[in-house]
């Protein structure tokens, strides 16, 4: 049985800024368990950043529990075009976030729980954390066949991945976070994590696809709350602390000064897309126009999420060459992004001859270009 209380009484003190001497007096010692009241991926990632940057973890470790409304989270050095179906994400209003830790891409929804273990750099130990989780699960349901692999995954029935891991190491602190699938929407998960983009060449960290399963499928009596409580209890026991979960509001500046800036930064285009390592696209597509089929070849280099080099090969004279080169010139330096490309393309139409035939060809080409983004 774990108690929850407001953070104000516990957190704001010592932790605010790092000092070796923590002016921190509370009922817990050795450990602190906090749970976010928000389901916003950016706010929760900001909390991780905040704790990583500002908390003194010498005398106490922290476990952070959080859940998010539907979102796809890519690793620090990954390429979102390579990892997921961005078109589908936009359609379904699923958020895209880039976290600061490494590793692969995951899908979050309220049926998935996230756990972050904060320690000093010296005490960074992923295996221990994962074993703690397995221990908690087994205490809850002794017949569950769950174990930790040497790739830091947790497998159910030796087959299905129910947890993925990633971590971030700073100068003096480190955190290891992982997911745990309780009752997530597997259908949405598999459809959003399948990239439709062809011809991508990149050095970004690729994800390793795996078969997943929800714990709920194994035992329908399990809920996210039960899992969170069980893990918190095990953590409390191992850290010899009170079974006490402190609730935290990721929008509260008085408790977490500077948090809103962190949240905002995580949402900027420059962070989410701009941090993609340099990549190139070399692809071709066919367009059907009035009984004829045209082949178009596109080659682009994208750096910091912006088109550095652009080349579009069209059948000769299908579109006025001057207009094509205007398009290429406009695209160069612009974000590799459908809304920006649409704006540029439609604007260019304004300043060229008002010819219906030309317009429909132009729109056809642009629609196809947008499919690449």
């Amino acid at each position, binding site marked *: 049985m774990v108690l929850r209380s407001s953070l*104000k009484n516990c957190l*704001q*003190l*010592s932790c*605010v*800024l790092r*000092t*070796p*001497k923590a*002016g*921190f*007096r509370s009922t817990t010692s050795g450990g602190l368990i906090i749970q976010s009241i928000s389901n916003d991926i950016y706010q929760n990632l900001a909390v991780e950043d905040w704790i990583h*940057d500002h908390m003194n973890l010498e005398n106490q470790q922290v476990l952070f529990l959080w859940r998010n409304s539907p979102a796809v989270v890519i*690793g*620090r*050095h990954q390429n979102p075009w390579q990892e997921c179906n961005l078109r589908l994400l*936009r359609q379904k*209003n699923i958020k895209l976030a880039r976290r600061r*830790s*490494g*590793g*692969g891409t995951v899908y979050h929804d309220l049926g998935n729980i996230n756990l972050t273990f904060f320690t000093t750099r010296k005490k*960074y*130990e*992923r295996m221990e954390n994962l074993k703690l989780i397995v221990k908690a699960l087994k205490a809850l349901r002794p017949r569950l066949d769950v174990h930790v692999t040497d790739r*830091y995954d947790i497998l159910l029935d030796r087959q299905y991945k129910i947890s993925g*891991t*990633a*971590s*971030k*190491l*700073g*100068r003096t602190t*480190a955190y290891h976070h992982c997911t745990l699938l309780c009752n997530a929407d597997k259908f949405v998960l598999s459809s959003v994590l399948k990239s439709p983009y062809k011809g991508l060449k990149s*050095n970004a960290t690729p994800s390793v696809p795996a078969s997943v399963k929800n714990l709920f499928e194994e035992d329908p009596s399990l809920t996210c709350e039960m899992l969170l409580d069980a893990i918190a209890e095990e953590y409390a026991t191992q850290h010899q602390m009170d079974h006490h979960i402190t609730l935290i509001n990721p929008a509260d*500046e*008085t408790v977490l*000064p500077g948090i809103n800036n962190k949240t905002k930064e995580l949402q900027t285009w420059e962070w989410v897309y701009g941090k993609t*390592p340099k990549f190139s696209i070399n692809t071709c597509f066919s367009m059907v126009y009035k009984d004829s089929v045209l082949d178009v070849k596109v080659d682009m280099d994208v750096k910091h999420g*912006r088109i550095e080099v652009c080349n579009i090969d069209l059948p000769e004279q299908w579109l006025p060459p001057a207009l094509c080169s205007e398009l290429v010139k*406009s695209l160069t*330096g*612009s*974000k590799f*992004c*459908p*809304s*920006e490309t*649409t*704006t*540029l393309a*439609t*604007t260019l*139409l*304004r*300043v060229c*001859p*008002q010819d219906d035939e030309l317009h429909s060809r132009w*729109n056809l080409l642009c629609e196809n270009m*947008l499919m690449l983004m």
Partner: protein
Amino acid sequence: SYVIVALISSCVVLVCIHRVRSCSSIRFIKSKYVCVCDKSALKFSHQQRLFRTSAVSCGQIVQFKLSDIGEGITEVTVKEWYIKEGDSVSQFDSICEVQSDKASVTITSRYDGVIRKLHYNLDEIAYVGKPLVDIEIDASKGVAPEEDVVETPPMSHEEHTHQEIKGHKTLATPAVRRLAMENNIKLSEVVGTGKDNRILKEDILNYLAKQTGAILPPSPKAEIIPPLPKSEHVAVAPKDKARKIPVPVSRPIVFSGKDKTEPVTGFQKAMVKTMSAALKIPHFGYCDEVDLTQLVQLREELKPLAQIRGVKLSFMPFFIKAASLGLLQYPILNASLDESCQNVTYKASHNIGVAMDTEQGLIVPNVKNVQVCSVFEIASELNRLQSLGSAGQLGTNDLTGGTFTLSNIGTIGGTYAKPVILLPEVAIGALGKIQILPRFNGKGEVFKAHIMNVSWSADHRIIDGATMARFSNLWKSYVENPASMLLDLK
């Protein structure tokens, strides 16, 4: 760096030097807290530092080796460099980001100095224990110590949590609280001069000044004055509030901001194109005032009906429909002039564009075929365009084919405007904000009127002033007397 300067003088406990370093690529703010008690001491040490660095011509080059990552890891991949050769770094600045097996590690500098060599390129494998970068260190400083040594501040930080004076919570913005915390000040000891004894930034600075005896520069008003509540009456400045005129202080004004140049791309580039092209059009303007009193009332009645059908009803659908009715009488305003100015094409469809201000910039989607749409249909379509617009998901079809544009700049503010025509169109209207102003009615009585100004611009090559004026009058009559629209609806 954590340089310990323990200066003993009359009232000093200096702790550590504040360092805030923001890295341009990541905006990584690592702030150590400030404890400034003796300003002169701080000044002295700053001067010392400056002196030291300027005196150095060539220092010792140290090979900064990649330190142990933990878990027995021996190699990592370099994923991002935060610095390049020739950059100055301070101790604890981020140097690069490396990745190993799902762990992303930020490597920070152990030294102050200048980067002389990067041993790896991006995506190369770096080895633990082998040199990562070469740093040229100041000869006089030597190698900084590994451990951070920090003297304890004069009071524990617990006291910052309970900001209560005599049972009342002290009022202070988070920024002010942080400033107090950074300077180890108890908010309970500061006299607040703001509203309800709120503690302002100046109060903290004054408190500090009293403590240290230093004369601090007058700070600009830090508190954001909340905007006056939206009043229905014309705003009158209160006479008793004396306007604070900044008094010039006789000290050299130091401004360390730098100009920032960036290339014009994306949305801005698009704007440059459209506006440059629009320059070729000889614009003329025509403005008028419209009394929306009746329309305001009509909309109030219809809003809930539209709501029931799931549509938010603003004034725009009425303005758009009225414009289309006007265009039926004056089709030249819905035309297009070809490049050579030889032919005018009268467009059959009234595809009325609505200027939208999004996060990224100005976009103008259009409502297609307004001439056959009802006001409700227009409203519904506007809702769709607006939600797509704010999500950045407008398609090419929504953004092309416009024949006439309305810009509701009044939602932001302003009365009269001089809108620029969007090619290939020949006319555009800008709608100012709706104000409640006194006007005379037919009986010579003063009444409350809802007044809005409209500013039209048209292509003087094919549109003459009279046509524009007549169109405007017709549009105005529909909008001032919405019932008259019923007569001409198709």
